[in-house]
């Protein structure tokens, strides 16, 4: 009789312990799964495009060295730099230099690939990509207008 009572008490204690254990596990699981939103990356991409537009390129016109924004417009107009180089070639090399130095792409990096695109209206003026294009990506864009023409720059970073 005494044995049975002791056994019942032990079972009760075990049940309570299991219930408390399960509650603790649920609480821990909830805390661990709570994801932190990452807003930095989106902001960084947009600040990158915005700052790049003001970058002074090596291409010179009659007024002096042109900014990347002006170089995009020159490329659209198929103009050449004072040194005879095509403005589109200058734009391509300058943009690649900017993107490759700003974002490290590779297997060791968190960024597995990127795609940069410049659109004039609906038409793509310049597009280049590197690395793997995965389903997980973040993007940013910046647009400006000149002489009634809309220009949109976008950058996708794949992770």
């Amino acid at each position: 009789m005494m044995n049975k009572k002791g056994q019942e008490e032990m079972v009760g204690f075990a049940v309570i312990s299991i219930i408390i254990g399960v509650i603790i596990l649920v609480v821990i699981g909830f805390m661990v799964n709570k994801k932190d939103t990452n807003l930095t990356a989106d902001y960084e991409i947009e600040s990158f495009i915005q700052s790049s537009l003001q970058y002074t390129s090596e291409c010179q016109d009659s007024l002096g060295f042109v900014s990347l924004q002006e170089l995009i417009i020159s490329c659209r107009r198929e103009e050449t730099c004072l040194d005879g180089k095509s403005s589109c070639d200058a734009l391509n090399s300058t943009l690649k230099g900017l993107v490759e130095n700003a974002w490290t792409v590779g297997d060791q990096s968190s960024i597995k690939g990127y795609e940069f695109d410049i659109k004039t209206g609906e038409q793509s003026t310049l597009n280049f990509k590197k690395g793997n294009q995965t389903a997980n990506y973040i993007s940013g864009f910046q647009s400006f207008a000149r002489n009634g023409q809309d220009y949109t720059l976008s950058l996708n970073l794949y992770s």
Partner: protein
Amino acid sequence: MVATKPYRFFPHEFPFKFESCLIKNRKGQLKIQQMIFMIIAVLLLFIMVGLFFLSISLNKMQKEATSLAEKNSMLLVAKLANSPEFSCENAFGSNKPNCIDFDKVIALKRNIAKYSDFWGVAKIEIRKVYPNEGNISCTDKNYPDCGDLKILDKNVEILSYASTFVTLCRKEFSETGPYNKCELARLLISSQDKT
């Protein structure tokens, strides 16, 4: 519940009844002991669970404080480039967003002692991204041919850096006269780790 008969002591029953009384007393003491142990065990369990939750909540609070400091750095870095101490304003044409006047910040570095607590951060740094000039630290002697300008550099434990891209502009001279030279850089900020 089984009702127990109250025990009455009769001297003629002495040796036998006294023994039985002792056994019953012992049983009661054992039961009281058992209950005390159980209460102590349950109390210990609750204390342990309480301590566990307390440590979790303290840990969470610490993480929240760190995350808040990091978010503050992020917000500050976003607006610092446009503050009067850093921004290009109209020195390089029309008002440019996210533009830092390189000439202005190198002068700021010389007088940083006056501003050490102004922004409430431990480190403010500008790293050139393109053209890449490596990790050459900027001084009055090698300016502007350098890659890293440490404006504020307190010797304390820091949190992770918050950064944003900026345009770093300065006045340059060529055969045709002065012109604006703008490069791509990263503005980095880090707060002190107070945890």
